[in-house]
């Protein structure tokens, strides 16, 4: 099993990262704050005003460590990466299938199975664990609607029909999303998903977690030699990492939504950690962002059994395993793409 590699998140404004032998050195205001061996790292994510020496970037590229630059609020800006890895034949196959409507629909169906099943699992899990605190009936009702959507994902359906089912499932899920909150319900009320900008605290939290997840999924795809830009469910649009977004779908409920909810429910983030601007846009403050990052890293270390491979691995490794399985489908080793099903 591939080692589980950690991601270094740098949020301190003005921080400077340099290469120091085989280590990454983090310097703030002329003071050495942290030294980490590069061999234990899977990626570096820099938020806002953080700079890196070209030698460090080169060293990261050589060692397959992706470096991403995000705005302070987590919007993706750029990524530095070494020579494209893997094999051109695999990427050609990816493009061929993405161009073929039947093959795209087959992939989309598998991806949606994962997405819908995992959304449903989140609802059922909360209904079961917090029977007394939540409207369990509403959650079970929505879960039933999701199951119904899922069972309608028949082989051979064209993409537009699949997207219709996806939309229906998305509505059913987000309609009851607010019921998943057991604490700070007023402050973190969820009504609809808003992204640009997020217009309430829970959306702000979700957007930030999705940005972290996107970074991880994208790195996983690149490390197995797939092109993160060419998707199946998400069609090509310049600048959009289509396949990364595709593969993210099955992880959103498990790695991001559930984490956002538990941060609120356990009081690990507080309403006062967010600032609401005059125009309604919501931002997180530094301490909240740090708390979210720490929780995200911790969550990725939890071990679970991969339902298809029947092997134990940390949650953080699952995107990598899914990328491998996706490549194996393209290669013809598997007759479909088995999504990560969380239970």
């Amino acid at each position, binding site marked *: 099993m591939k080692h589980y590699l950690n991601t270094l998140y740098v949020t301190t404004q003005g921080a400077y990262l340099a290469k120091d032998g085989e280590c990454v050195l983090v310097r703030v205001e002329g003071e050495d704050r942290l030294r980490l061996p590069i061999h234990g790292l899977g990626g570096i994510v820099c938020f806002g005003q953080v700079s890196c020496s070209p030698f460090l970037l080169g060293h990261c590229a050589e060692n397959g460590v992706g470096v991403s630059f995000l705005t302070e609020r987590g919007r993706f800006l750029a990524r530095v990466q070494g020579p494209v890895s*893997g094999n051109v034949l695999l990427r050609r196959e990816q493009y061929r299938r993405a161009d073929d409507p039947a093959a795209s629909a087959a992939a989309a169906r598998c991806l949606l199975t994962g997405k819908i099943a995992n959304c449903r699992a989140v609802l059922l899990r909360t209904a079961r664990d917090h029977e007394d605190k939540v409207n369990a009936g509403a959650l079970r009702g929505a879960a039933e609607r999701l199951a119904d959507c*899922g069972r309608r994902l028949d082989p051979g359906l064209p993409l537009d029909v699949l997207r219709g089912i996806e939309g229906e499932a998305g509505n059913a899920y987000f309609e009851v999303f607010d019921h998943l909150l057991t604490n700070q319900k007023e402050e973190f009320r969820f009504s609809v998903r808003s992204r640009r900008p997020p217009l309430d605290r829970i959306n702000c939290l979700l957007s930030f977690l999705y940005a972290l997840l996107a970074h991880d999924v994208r790195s996983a795809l690149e490390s197995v030699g797939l092109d993160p830009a060419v998707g199946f469910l998400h069609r090509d649009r310049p600048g959009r990492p289509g396949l990364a977004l595709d593969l993210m779908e099955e992880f959103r409920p498990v790695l991001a939504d559930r984490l956002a909810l538990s941060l609120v429910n356990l009081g690990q983030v507080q309403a006062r950690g967010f600032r609401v601007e005059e125009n309604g846009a919501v931002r997180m403050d530094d301490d909240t962002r740090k708390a979210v990052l720490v929780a995200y890293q911790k969550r990725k270390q939890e071990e679970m059994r991969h339902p*298809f491979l029947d092997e134990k691995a940390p949650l953080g490794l699952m995107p990598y395993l899914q990328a491998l399985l996706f490549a*194996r*489908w393209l*290669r*013809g*080793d598997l007759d479909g793409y*088995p999504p990560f099903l969380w239970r």
Partner: protein
Amino acid sequence: MYSEDGLLPLSALQHLLFCPRQCALIHVERQWEENRFTAEGRVAHEKVHEAGSETRGGRRIVSGLPLRSLRLGLSGQADVVEFEADGAPFPVEHKRGRAKEEDWDRVQLCAQALCLEEMTGRTVERGALFYGKTRRREDVVFDADLRRRTEETAARLHELVESGRTPPPEPSGRCRNCSLASVCLPGARRSVEPYLRKAFDE
């Protein structure tokens, strides 16, 4: 005859003999995962290659000698080649671990000999394998049988790489020592449909 562009690494012969899928993962798909076994092998090799060249008792001992054969379509490096006083080459390959039941190591050594023959125009009759774990040296005679097997293996290697296809996994005891098991996923069931069908059960 192959062109220089079409040469494949000598080491790929061993990968092919170990497992055709492993060979395709490395040489077609370019997946390479360094695990303990390969890392130790690499360190051992670096030591040998550092040695350079020296003369001992009338023999010149050359490390890290580049090799190629256009006939077999192979290129690579010999750990050590000893040149007798009369110029006859004698390849010596260092192996981590111990002698294997199978003749993979002999095939690889024989391929080196065939490269040396093509490059020097001299017949190479023998060579030796040196095993680090047991510190044993095994002399190898490049007889007609071993030569034929080596040529066949080289031809199969070219077929595999040119096909651009990765054969399906054949799970076996070897998978435990395979450096690419985590990429190969030999345990993945091949049919996904029943798995998808179960997603909305219960």
